[in-house]
């Protein structure tokens, strides 16, 4: 949903975020290398917006989400939330922040404890946060169930009694129970059928308006991300290739990877059939990414410079940033912030 964000208050500022996973090898299980799942990513998230992150498997989009929420500890970089850097806080110190930030996971079959009733599942985060009295919590559970379109009778039931779409509603109700300001959806609708997917997307939009939520919406489906986002970032092998307002990104993609990605989506427009040239090759291994621009091995426009020099995100006007040498002077690189 595109709505005018009048004053752009910054909620999150991510600066040079890195998350490396060690690769162990040899008899002594020594660290022999790193998978650079998130490699020097910087961007901002504005209050009240939906920022979509798209990428293929192995692009680091899920790791990015988990690192921002501090479910994973960052290797380096800053996560500035409401003017405070939370990247180095110990878990105990993080607890007050946790209630502001929640996550909705992809697989509603795996992310809800099968031994807890729906009422307990939704109440649990409030008990942990210890903000409400018991009667208030019970009332809140009923409220939330109603908000996500399930009746109060759902309280006593268990997750297996619900369909995938209903479970995702339960997951959303649970994430809302601490009255968060920020929710990360990690592929929240990709396990659902089309007709149910649209129900959940509409619900998420309604709740965003009602509770003034800010979303970081991570998905591989470009059409879904386009539908729900205000701005969209494209990730490739741990790096941000391009980030721009939705319309600008989909109508005038600048990065050759974004262009290929958009062209690869099967179109239902049977009256205007486009001639396609699919991108060649496979995604390189994230543990051994290509030098220079990570995309140069598959890029139809790659030149010598792309093989050695890593492109920085460059401002192309109106909040459109792209990391590609096609848009920078040969040398020296002029960065426009």
């Amino acid at each position, binding site marked *: *949903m595109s709505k005018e964000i009048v004053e752009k208050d910054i909620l999150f500022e991510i600066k040079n975020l890195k998350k490396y996973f060690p690769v162990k090898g040899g008899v002594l299980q020594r660290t022999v290398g790193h998978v650079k799942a998130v490699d020097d990513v910087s961007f901002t998230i504005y209050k009240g917006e939906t920022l979509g992150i798209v990428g*293929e*498997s192995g692009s680091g989009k899920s790791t990015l989400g988990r690192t921002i929420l501090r479910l994973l500890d960052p290797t380096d970089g800053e996560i500035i939330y409401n003017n405070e850097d939370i990247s180095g806080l110990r878990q105990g110190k993080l607890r007050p922040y946790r209630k502001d930030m929640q996550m909705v996971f992809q697989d509603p079959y795996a992310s809800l404890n099968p031994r807890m009733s729906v009422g307990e599942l939704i109440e649990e985060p409030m008990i942990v946060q210890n903000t409400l009295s018991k009667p208030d919590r019970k009332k809140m559970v009923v409220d939330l169930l109603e908000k996500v379109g399930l009746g109060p009778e759902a309280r006593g039931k268990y997750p297996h009694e619900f*369909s995938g*779409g209903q479970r995702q509603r339960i997951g959303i109700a649970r994430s809302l129970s601490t009255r968060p300001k920020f929710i990360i959806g990690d592929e929240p609708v990709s396990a659902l*059928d*089309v*007709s*149910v*997917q*649209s*129900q959940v*997307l*509409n619900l998420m*939009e309604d709740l965003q308006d009602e509770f003034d939520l800010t979303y970081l919406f991570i998905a*591989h489906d*470009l*059409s*879904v991300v*386009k*539908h*729900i986002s205000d701005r969209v970032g494209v990730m490739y092998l741990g790096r941000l290739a391009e980030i721009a307002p939705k319309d600008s990104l*989909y109508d005038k993609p600048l990065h050759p990877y974004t262009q*290929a*990605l*958009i*062209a*690869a*989506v*099967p*179109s*239902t*427009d*049977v*009256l205007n059939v486009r001639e*396609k040239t*699919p*991108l*060649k090759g*496979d*995604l390189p291994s994230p543990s051994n990414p290509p030098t220079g621009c990570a995309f140069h091995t598959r890029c139809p426009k790659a030149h010598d410079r792309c093989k050695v020099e890593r492109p920085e995100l460059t401002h192309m006007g109106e909040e459109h940033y792209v990391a590609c040498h096609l848009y920078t002077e040969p040398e020296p690189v002029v960065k426009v912030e």
Partner: protein
Amino acid sequence: MSNERILDVKGLKTQFRIDKQKVAKAVDGIDFHINKGETLAIVGESGSGKSITALSIMQLIPSPPGKIVEGSIELDGVDLLGLSEKQMTATRGNDVAMIFQEPMTSLNPVFTIGTQVSEPLRKHKKLGKKEAKKQTIELLKLVGFPRAEDIFHEYPHQLSGGMRQRAMIAMALSCAPKLIIADEPTTALDVTIQAQILDLMLDMKKKTGSSILMITHDLGVVAETADRVAVMYAGQIVETSTVKELFVKPKHPYTVGLLNSMPKIDQDSERLESIPGMVPPAHNFPQGCRFAPRCKHAMDKCTEAVPDLIEDGLNHKVRCVLYDGSGKGVTHV
């Protein structure tokens, strides 16, 4: 494309016994055909019976509890349901081949790609080892492996998902089957790899003139690959037409709802339409039209009896009382 039918399915019913009282009618009386050189897509959500249709044709339904209880499946004039298990084994991989969704689980991890891709050639065409290897390497080159000789000796885990699906396609093509059934062939793949595989399948179809039955939940894949399409809901075909017709003039309220609930990359929509409720379980279908409880056009008549699949327009059939001659229809999109 000719009008000669390569596959003719009539009145197919496949059921699964759940317990003494309950029977899941996964596929409940479907008719369709595929002409020579044609691609037919069967599209539907989970639980619609589309994959069971594919497995019924291959006769790979686990039995018990599953059973084909009625109907006929004719492949190039031969009724597959009348074949013995031995004859069916000779048919699978030879006359009709299947590409599965998960190339990770449908290839055997302990055999090399070469062994697996050449197996149908050795079994069905009785080729010697040397000849089979030569043809397999040709096949691997055909499906786009640049270093086919090396790939021949490699194991599935050494290949990426897209590469494995290429190997599966090579295997399916090896005996030049009359029909290829592809069950969600690109669902597990990333979008750029999906585009490569769909491109490859279209290319192979052009080169070999094979007929394809494409099973998918993705309307985008239907639009890009198929000539005709059948929409399945709750074990029945609710609408069938050419692909162009279906996307331009969808008729069944379910098809219309499905198209409108899909976010589209080349269109902006403020709000998606959604279909309330969910697909009914196969052991407990509602009385009458199975979509009626979710349909905004539903009326009393809908719950009386299952509507027939009615011809409405050229090669366009729809199972909905709105089209039974009163000439009303749905206003849509």
